[in-house]
Structures are given as C-alpha cells and as structure tokens.
C-alpha cells in the first residue's frame, strides 16, 4: 500500500489533474445551480503533512463549515469540502436568493442548503473521477459540522491516518462578480484505494 508521500511525480500529477478537473466540474455545477456566473482560478492541488494541512485552510482555530461524504464502493474514499464560516453565509445568501447579510446563523434551512451545495460539488467532483477511472461511486448523504478547522480535519484525516501522514488538498477559489470565495476539497482515499486509483489512471 502506498501513501501520498511515496508517489512519483507522474503519479502525483495524475492525481492532481483529476482533482483539478473534478473541482472544475464542481464550479460549473454550482454556477448552474444558482444561475450566476461563477469564475474559478486554477485550483491548487498540494500534498501536505497533517500539521500543515490546517495552515492551508487558515489555521486550526478558524471557524469553518465542513461537508463530508463517504463513498463505499470497491474504491472506498471520503470527500470533504471546507469553507470559512463567513464565506459559507455569503454563499447561502445567493443560493437562497436573500439580500446580502441575511444568513448569519445555522438554522435548518441553512444547513439543508449547505448540504445540498456539498452534494452537488462532491457529486460533480466524483463524476470526473468516475470518467477517468471507469468506476461508479455512490456517495453517502453528506454530514456537516461547523466548528474549528482543526477539529473537523482531525476527524476525517483519521480515516487515512493509519497509513499516511499526508493528505491531498485542492484549494479552489470561486469568484462571483468581485467577491472571492475560497473553498477547499480534500480527497481522502482509503489505503487500498489510492493504489487502485493509480492503476485505473494507468500510472501505477
């Protein structure tokens, strides 16, 4: 079994590339959902050790909203979407069609809308993965948490923690008119999955 730190440059590039395409798909899906143009900068994919991962998202005590989905197929994996809490509210304002600043706490409506966004984002991300690997991925319903980034990340990183000290994170910047919204995808393949992924991509 491999972990991210043992990948060759070619393998790394292959994994990053599908992540980039997946994130691109996600932005398109989001744009269609809210009926507004969403631009996106080129996603930055990086492999980092656990303590640095929390720095990428703004520090362990940063308040974030996280949506997490598990995929139980023959390639089990997890997908986490993280977004700073204040930006999540901005997101919700235009998804729910309310004036800017309306949504500032997590009621049932906000939670449900957020999970729907996660559903769509992660779903389109998985679609890209499915195209490249000729596999079907059926994700669970998303679970969400709003809390410190470190606390949320710690829990999902445990999934791969038994074999790895590294994780793959894709940083996405969505741009709606002038406002930049930074969201982060984490692709968390279970131990055997990473190897199978590489095989399916033809870079094993």
């Amino acid at each position, binding site marked *: *079994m491999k972990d991210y730190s043992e990948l060759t440059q070619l393998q790394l590039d292959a994994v990053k590339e599908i992540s980039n395409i997946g994130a691109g798909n996600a932005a398109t899906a989001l744009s269609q959902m809210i009926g507004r143009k969403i631009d996106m900068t080129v996603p930055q994919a990086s492999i980092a050790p*656990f*303590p640095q991962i*929390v720095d990428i998202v703004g*520090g*362990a*005590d940063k*308040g974030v909203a*996280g949506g*997490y989905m*598990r995929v139980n197929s023959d390639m089990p994996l997890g997908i986490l979407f993280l977004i700073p809490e204040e930006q999540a509210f901005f997101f919700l304002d235009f998804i729910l069609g309310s004036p800017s600043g309306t949504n500032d706490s997590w009621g049932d409506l906000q939670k449900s809308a957020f999970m729907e966004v996660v559903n769509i984002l992660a779903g389109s991300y998985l679609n890209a993965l499915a195209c490249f690997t000729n596999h079907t991925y059926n994700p*669970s*319903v998303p*679970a*969400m*948490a709003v*809390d*410190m*980034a*470190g*606390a*949320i*990340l*710690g*829990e*999902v*990183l*445990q999934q791969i*923690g*038994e*074999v790895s*000290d590294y994780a793959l994170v894709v940083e996405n910047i969505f741009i709606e008119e002038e406002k930049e919204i930074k969201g982060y995808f984490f692709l968390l393949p279970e*131990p055997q999955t990473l190897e199978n992924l590489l095989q399916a991509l033809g870079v094993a």
Partner: protein
Amino acid sequence: MADETVKVGMAEVKTALAPQSLITIGLGSCIGICLWDPVKKVGGLAHIMLPDSTQSRKSINKAKFADTGIRVLVDEMVSLGANKTRLVAKIAGGAQMFNFPGSSNVMRIGDRNAEAVKKSLKELSIRLKAEDTGGNFGRTIEFFTENGDLLVKTINKGQKII
C-alpha cells in the same frame, strides 16, 4: 528566553517547563493528553489522532497513536527531570464532529480514542485527574505547567478550567 507558549500540532508530542504553557488548537475526535509532574513542574502534551498503533501498517510517527504517543511523552518528560511515579494526567477531546445516520463503529473514533487513552494511562499507572471528552464540538486547550490547570475553550460552549 523561550516562548511562553509551546504549540503542539496534530500528531505531535511536546514538553515544557514552568512557566511555559502548552497549547493545541482544534481538537475534534483527536485527544490532547496532558501529563504533569507537580514537583518538578514539567508538563507535556500529546495530540493523538488514533487509538491503536498495532492496527497500523507502519507506525513511523508514534505521536499519532494513543498507546505509543503516551509512552513517547512519558520518556521525554523523564529526560527533562520528571519522575514517572508522580505524573498525573488530564485529557480533553474525543468528540464526534460528523454524525452519519446509522453510522458504524468505525466512525465513533472519538470514543475509541478516549478508551484507548485511559487504558494506556492505566497500564502506566498514571492517575487521570480530570477529563473533558465527548460531545460534538471542537476544543482548543492550554495546559499550564505552573499549576497543572487545563483551560478548555470551545466556539459555542464557552470555556472552563479542569
């Protein structure tokens, strides 16, 4: 002069001498294990992620696991002059951040972490003086080597000293 606070990251073990404090930010299902020698005022903090190193393929980083992390911490504290028989423990964390409908045992990692930590403390005959574990929220903790106080901070549930 060393910094007043020592930061402990995910899957790290650090020690400190009075008057320094040890801080770890954003504990979810991870657990912060704080050990203290009240006489020498040596403190140590391990931020563990997983219960059991024997389940792992390779345990390069011992600080990641409850069973090995505590032992590494004890060794480091002893080399700083702490006496193993005087050590007392306080722990925090072990929450469950995500709640899946019908979730399996595997997901209840916070509880399993807490159990594993207590088991290891028992094996090493270290007394557990206080704990703040469980729930579904994150914790930031600061451990003061001067008096052994452990400050537990949360975003929505206030803060307390245990």
